[in-house]
């Protein structure tokens, strides 16, 4: 234990003295420290007393806030709920005051919002008017009709396509470019000059209309592009937009601009031309490069047209195929029905046609039938092998082409027998008898009804003919007519015979009268009678190898030997053969 000499209790004999010492000490302390003591007591009172403290805090509160606020945010965080609830209470208690206070701020903002809404409405209305006459509008009208939407709505839907191509962050006062972002598609000229010009244009517009500093040029249009300007206190955003942007885009710009302002308050305020710090706004600005593309829906109208066309094509194809098929079968029937044609094979594949068969050389040309059926002869490939058809009509044609019968002969087929009737020269009759059975399709030949005549016989028949007339008449009677018919046939045959031998037939028609009546009248009669007889024989019986002489009347009359004949009312015929070209001499013996 340590010894404490100054301890009064250590010496019991001195207890009185020590108590007096304590009193002295207290007195001394009171004497020395009385004023401080009072102050201390006062301080303690102040610290304990609520009223005093509140007054003191109130005195330093503004500075305290200022000091705290400069450094960090906890203060505002702590205060925020109280301010908020305080505000709510205030609004509840006296809304009028609040309204009065914010009206000047809200008024212009609301007015601007309404103006913008109206503007976009008129814009879309104008657009729908513009579009109402275009081809596009027609499509949209169809769209509207199909979807049951209003036309204006459809137009709006279609035009709500846009792309923000460039965004400029521009220092408001100097017009200097702080930062610039652009899409790859954008055509970027000199963004610095553009910033300056944009600023100048805004100044110009504002000055020209005598507008105040906060009335700004918010938007202008250059061709397909719209330039939107979003104003901030230090900087503004200018966005070059292609197409028609929605108004909601402005809110995004606003947010970005506000964000940049909040983040770069100092840098903006102190801006002296160094844009480097604003490189950090890149990502912010890039969020403004929005684009809205219309999803390329398959055009239903186009699909319809396509389906329609396909359908039409199918119908057309079906129709033509059907038509061709019908024509084809009709052609085949036709070919089969044609004498001398035998179809052995027929094929039709995809517009190509193939025919194979037998064809008599004398049959109708099958390509003619093909063309008649309406086919292009080039698409129908046909192979015809020659053959002799045994159809009676073809056999007949064949016989006629091979035998060259004279006009006086008529050929017919009776089954497989060739029959000749009429009259013909001996030569033709003889030759035909030899060859007829050799003609394909002819198995027998008959000519028992065919008159054969020699040249002499024919001449006799003609020369014996005498046509009689009534007195003073030049008309031919019915019996004479019949006789002259035979003469005609004979003349015809004679003509053919002459043709064979290279000679000419000369026919003299000699008219006569009786000796009564005036000579002039008789001469007239003679002439008329000769002509009548010639007419009765018929010009068609006079072949090209025959020469007719009628004007021998006069010379005959002067001839004395003819007197006997000359005194009768008759016409006599005289035919003879002569070598071709010499008939004139022979005609006048």
């Amino acid at each position, binding site marked *: 234990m340590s010894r404490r000499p100054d301890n009064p209790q250590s010496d019991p004999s001195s207890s009185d003295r020590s108590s007096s010492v304590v009193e002295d000490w207290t007195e001394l302390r009171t004497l020395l420290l009385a004023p401080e003591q009072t102050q201390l007591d006062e301080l303690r009172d102040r610290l304990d007393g609520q009223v005093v403290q509140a007054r003191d805090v109130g005195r330093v509160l503004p500075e305290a806030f200022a000091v705290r606020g400069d450094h960090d945010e906890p203060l505002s965080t702590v205060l925020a709920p109280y301010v908020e609830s305080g505000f709510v209470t205030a609004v509840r208690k006296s809304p009028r005051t609040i309204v009065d206070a914010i009206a000047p701020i809200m008024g212009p903002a609301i007015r601007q919002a309404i103006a913008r809404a109206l503007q976009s409405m008129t814009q879309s209305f104008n657009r729908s008017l513009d579009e109402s006459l275009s081809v596009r509008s027609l499509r949209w009208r169809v769209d509207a009709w199909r979807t049951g939407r209003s036309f204006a709505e459809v137009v709006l839907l279609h035009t709500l396509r846009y792309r923000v191509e460039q965004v400029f962050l521009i220092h408001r*006062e*100097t017009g200097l470019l702080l930062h610039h972002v652009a899409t790859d598609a954008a055509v970027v000229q000199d963004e610095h000059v553009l910033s300056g010009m944009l600023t100048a244009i805004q100044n110009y517009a504002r000055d020209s209309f005598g507008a105040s500093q906060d009335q700004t040029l918010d938007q202008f249009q250059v061709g397909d592009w719209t330039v939107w300007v979003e104003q901030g206190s230090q900087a503004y955003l200018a966005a070059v937009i292609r197409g028609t942007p929605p108004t909601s885009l402005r809110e995004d710009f606003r947010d970005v601009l506000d964000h940049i302002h909040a983040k770069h308050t100092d840098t903006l305020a102190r801006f*002296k031309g*160094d844009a480097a710090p604003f490189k950090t706004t890149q990502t912010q600005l890039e969020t403004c490069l929005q684009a809205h593309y219309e999803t390329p829906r398959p055009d239903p109208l186009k699909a319809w047209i396509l389906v329609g066309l396909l359908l039409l094509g199918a119908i057309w194809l079906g129709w033509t195929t059907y038509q061709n098929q019908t024509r084809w079968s009709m052609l085949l029937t036709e070919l089969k029905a044609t004498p001398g044609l035998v179809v052995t094979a027929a094929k039709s594949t995809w517009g190509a046609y193939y025919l194979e068969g037998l064809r008599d050389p004398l049959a109708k040309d099958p390509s003619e039938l093909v063309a008649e059926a309406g086919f292009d002869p080039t698409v129908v490939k046909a192979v015809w092998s020659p053959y002799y058809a045994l159809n009676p009509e073809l056999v007949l044609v064949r016989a006629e082409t091979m035998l060259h019968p004279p006009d006086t002969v008529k050929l017919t087929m009776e089954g497989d027998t060739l029959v000749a009737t009429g009259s013909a020269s001996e030569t033709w009759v003889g030759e035909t008898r030899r060859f007829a059975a050799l003609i394909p399709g002819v198995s027998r030949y008959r000519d028992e009804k065919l008159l054969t005549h020699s040249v002499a016989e024919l001449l006799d028949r003609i020369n014996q003919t005498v046509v009689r007339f009534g007195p003073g008449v030049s008309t031919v009677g019915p019996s004479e007519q019949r006789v002259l018919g035979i003469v005609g046939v004979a003349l015809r045959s004679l003509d053919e015979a002459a043709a064979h031998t290279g000679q000419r037939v000369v026919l003299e028609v000699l008219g006569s009268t009786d000796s009564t009546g005036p000579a002039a009248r008789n001469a007239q009669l003679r002439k008329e009678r000769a002509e009548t007889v010639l007419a009765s024989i018929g010009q068609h019986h006079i072949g090209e190898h025959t020469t007719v002489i009628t004007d021998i009347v006069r010379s005959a009359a002067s001839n004395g030997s003819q007197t006997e004949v000359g005194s009768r009312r008759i016409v006599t015929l005289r035919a003879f053969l002569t070598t071709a070209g010499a008939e004139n001499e022979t005609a006048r013996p």
Partner: protein
Amino acid sequence: MIQKKICMLGGFAVGKTSLVRRFVTNVFSDQYRTTIGVTVERKSLVVDDHDVTLMLWDLYGEDEFQRLRESYLRGSSGYIIVMDGTRQSTLDGALALQQTAARTLGPVPFIAIINKADVRAEWEIDDRSINQLRERGWTVLFGSAKLGQGVDELFTLLATQMLKASPPSGVPS
């Protein structure tokens, strides 16, 4: 890179546009084309190892539109006052313009140039008036946009002064 906005000030047809064109594109045209409103041009140059981009605002020179000019002036780091040596009146206009500029912009650097030095013989502005301007503290240069005289010097000098007036960060003043 530092950008600076510069305004070209001066009366009608003193040669503002010609000076800017000579400086930016190094061409000169005798044809006079009225500048409508304002034209902004850009020219980059290096001053004291700094890349400086000058945005040259060429205002139209109609003197009756003073009010308009103030809004264009705002934000300029410096300006150029152009006078036409052959017209005394352009000097009086220059004085008024300088006052407007100083009022709007405060004490920013500016340089005055008396243009059309190539026709010195026709000058109306005499040495006495020029000296008076210099006594006011003006930097007065002579130049010719036509010949390209004094043009680069004009802009380089102003750029230097502007950099001095507000040095870019990281450079001791």
